[in-house]
């Protein structure tokens, strides 16, 4: 019995840090609508700086002062980030900020290694909380007890801040209607900056307080960011109380899951999140999201099919790509095949995001399912390659059909989180069902048939499939189905009012995107000759998102360019520099600031400007007056 109580208390202690970080993320999202991917990075920097300060200054003041100073220093960094980066992109398409903060995260991961080295750092114990308390023969670290008390105290302080101060009232008002707050004379810029600073402060404090419990290392950002997203979504975005309850829930699930359901402990929280979202789509304490006020003039460039000249140009580009084996070596061809496969993956997600308006954070699940489908068919049933390539993606299709059915009941960030949860569930099945999937060792020896074995043949195969998939999805965009899907994206209510079965259309789109991703995964299995759980992991899902956003989410086929640029740059950087994340992250941040419409979006804008110069009414538009922010 005492053992379980101790386990429970350990869970509560872990909840404190989780709550601090999650509440910060929740506040920032509520007001600025930015899904701050860099929140985990701020948490990590908080831990590193706190480590340095507490090592430098000794004594109780040194420790506690160091922790607070670290959080303040990181909050200052947050203010800089907000002013220099985020302020420029508040009006960019939704999720574009996610790309910017993702770039920051990449940079930070390399920077901390550069500054603090790659080794785990074990921090000082907290003065006054070094011992343990005996509880019926079980030991509880007294620092854990301190954290257990700290959580509710911070909750109380935040509650007072939001309910009893003018700043809190303004923040809550801005959470609901930012423009109206500006129309009442409040300077949103500073309100946003201050909110961001408070959110980052909480994240960094959460990190700093972890040093007596855990070693500081350079991967702690990704480990916490996923858990924090889960907490925020279960609790309800924008709800501080919800974040607290969900942090406790998740921490206790982690603490007891390992005892009661050791087989599924990794995915237990994701199962719970999926269940919560299906029953209460806005989380336990959240409110239905008010339809975001779309900025008029943002998506006004109507899409059109390619002109015949553009078709010729695309064809020419394809022919040139097909000529690559004439002068490139085997390594380049393998890289080319990989890029072509990622084009397939990116256009499938691009279809879901741009045409369907559904941003999936777990698209790699269907890519990986396609790969596993091929591996099962080839290794277990011993089927020939052609059959495997045709049937393997069906596993992705089936996965998308099941998960998509639930996912399309939600929208926005909640849709994104549910898809993430599903992807995690699939990942952990692949990881833990060792007898079937091989677990971490994967399935090896999935080699292509002799006709496709040479690098040039495989390259042509991948290139051909990529071209076909891209063309097929383009045709879908301009088909009646594509019009209906775009209608559900632009206004769910109005599309239903004209008789479109919106959920079914979105579900269909989800299945199409999942199957297409599965095709990419099937090819990928043959390219690598093996399949691993990483093929459906979070980082691959994030890669897909980055490729789509980089190409331009408001374009018809931006995913193609995004995939080529991102993947080529990624592979090249890894081979050129040890600081590939730093360079890649910096490149992404630069793209976000300089080309907020993505690469293709920017090219289209340039082309348009050239096509109708001088544009009618250009004198009127010459000096547009920016609205607030």
């Amino acid at each position, binding site marked *: 019995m005492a053992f379980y109580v101790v386990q429970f208390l350990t869970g509560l202690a872990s909840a404190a840090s989780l709550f601090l970080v999650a509440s910060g993320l929740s506040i920032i999202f509520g007001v600025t609508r930015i899904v701050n991917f860099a929140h985990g990075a701020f948490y990590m920097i908080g831990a590193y700086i706190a480590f340095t300060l507490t090592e430098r200054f000794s004594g109780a003041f040194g420790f506690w002062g160091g922790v607070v100073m670290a959080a303040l220093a990181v909050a200052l960094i947050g203010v800089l980030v907000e002013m220099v980066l985020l302020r420029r992109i508040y009006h960019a398409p939704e999720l574009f900020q996610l790309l910017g903060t993702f770039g920051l995260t990449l940079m930070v991961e390399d920077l901390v290694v550069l500054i603090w080295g790659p080794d785990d750092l074990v921090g000082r114990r907290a003065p006054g909380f070094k011992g343990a308390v005996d509880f019926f023969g079980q030991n509880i670290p007294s620092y854990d007890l301190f954290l257990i008390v700290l959580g509710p105290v911070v909750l109380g302080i935040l509650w007072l801040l939001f309910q009893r101060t003018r700043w809190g009232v303004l923040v*809550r008002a801005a959470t609901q*209607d930012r423009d*109206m707050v*500006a129309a009442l004379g409040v300077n*949103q810029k500073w309100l946003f900056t201050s909110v961001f600073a408070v959110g980052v402060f909480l994240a960094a404090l959460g990190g700093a307080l972890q040093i007596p419990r855990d070693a500081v290392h350079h991967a702690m950002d990704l480990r916490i960011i996923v858990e924090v997203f889960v907490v925020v979504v279960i609790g309800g975005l924008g709800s501080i109380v919800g974040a607290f309850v969900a942090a406790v829930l998740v921490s206790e699930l982690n603490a007891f899951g390992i005892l009661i359901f050791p087989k599924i402990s990794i995915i237990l929280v994701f199962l719970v999140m999926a269940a919560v979202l299906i029953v209460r789509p806005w989380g336990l304490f959240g409110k239905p999201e008010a339809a975001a006020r779309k900025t008029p003039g943002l998506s006004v460039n109507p899409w059109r099919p390619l002109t015949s000249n553009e078709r010729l140009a695309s064809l020419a580009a394809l022919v040139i790509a097909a000529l690559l084996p004439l002068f490139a070596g085997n390594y380049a061809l393998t890289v080319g095949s990989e890029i072509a496969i990622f084009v397939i993956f990116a256009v499938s997600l691009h279809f879901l995001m741009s045409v369907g308006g559904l941003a999936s954070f777990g698209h790699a699940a269907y890519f990986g399912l396609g790969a596993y489908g091929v591996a099962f068919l080839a290794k277990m049933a011993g089927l020939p390659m052609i059959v495997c390539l045709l049937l393997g993606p069906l596993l992705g299709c089936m996965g998308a059909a099941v998960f998509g059915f639930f996912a399309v009941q939600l929208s926005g960030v909640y849709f994104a989180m549910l898809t993430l949860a599903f992807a995690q569930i699939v990942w952990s099945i692949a990881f833990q069902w060792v007898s079937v999937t091989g677990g971490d060792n994967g399935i090896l020896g999935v080699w292509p048939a002799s006709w496709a074995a040479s690098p040039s043949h495989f390259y042509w195969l991948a290139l051909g499939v990529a071209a076909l998939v891209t063309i097929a999805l383009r045709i879908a965009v301009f088909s009646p189905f594509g019009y209906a899907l775009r209608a559900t994206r632009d206004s769910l209510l109005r599309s239903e009012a004209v008789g479109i079965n919106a959920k079914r259309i979105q579900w269909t789109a989800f299945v199409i995107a999942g199957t297409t991703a599965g095709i990419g995964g099937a090819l990928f299995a043959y390219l690598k000759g093996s399949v691993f759980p990483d093929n459906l992991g979070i980082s691959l899902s994030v890669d897909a998102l980055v490729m789509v956003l980089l190409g331009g989410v408001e374009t018809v086929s931006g995913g193609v360019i995004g995939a080529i640029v991102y993947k080529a740059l990624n592979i090249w950087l890894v081979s050129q520099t040890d600081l590939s994340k730093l360079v890649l992250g910096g490149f992404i941040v630069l793209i976000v600031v300089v080309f907020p419409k993505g690469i293709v979006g920017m090219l289209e804008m340039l082309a348009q400007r050239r096509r109708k110069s001088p544009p009618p009414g250009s004198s009127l538009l010459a000096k547009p*007056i920016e*609205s*607030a922010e």
Partner: protein
Amino acid sequence: MKLTVQDLNSHYGPAHILFDIGFEVGEGEVVALLGRNGAGKSTTFRSIVGLVAQRTGRIVFEGKNVSAKPTHEIVREGLGYVPEERRIFTDLTVEENLEVGRQPKRPNAPHWDREKLFALFPNLGEMKNRPGGRMSGGEQQMLTIARTLMGNPSLVLLDEPSEGLSPKIVEQMVDAILTMKKEGVSIVVSEQNLHFARLISDRAYIIERGRICFGGTMAELDARPDIRDAHLSL
């Protein structure tokens, strides 16, 4: 002049909405902006306070050209805006809604505080702690005006204050607007309801398809039934 708008043009994306809008408001005057649904009344107001990103023209408020300023700075000059959709913060109580609107005193404008506003709108005083989302349409309309008055504006843009309200509430609204005028607040009120406009306004402009097509006193408007029928009748 309190407010002068010249050559105001506004766009939503490629759509040109307002064409060379111009009008003036004198010190302490109540001016009506009349027009049908979709004529451009709300866009005119939104453009003046900078909520429409693509606009050009001159907006001179109390002798200062404010057209290049961001929304919150225009409002802080003393130019209050009451939106048509009311846009009450539904999660916030009545008192908290008023707090969001609060700005420092202004030497050239009447000062408003909670007590004075609860006297102006007695209904609000009885529900200080009620969330905005649980108020009737009429109560929300009172709150949105009171919230803007907390900023101590010297001029208020009132977008269709009578829309969707019961006749009894409309009467209260007329009284409230006349009280604001007596206190010295200049007012531009957009309306479809000529009867309501006549009760409160000194002068009127008619807007149709994004253009001003008439400007004059209420008496002058009454003398031109042709204009009235062409642009305002249902």
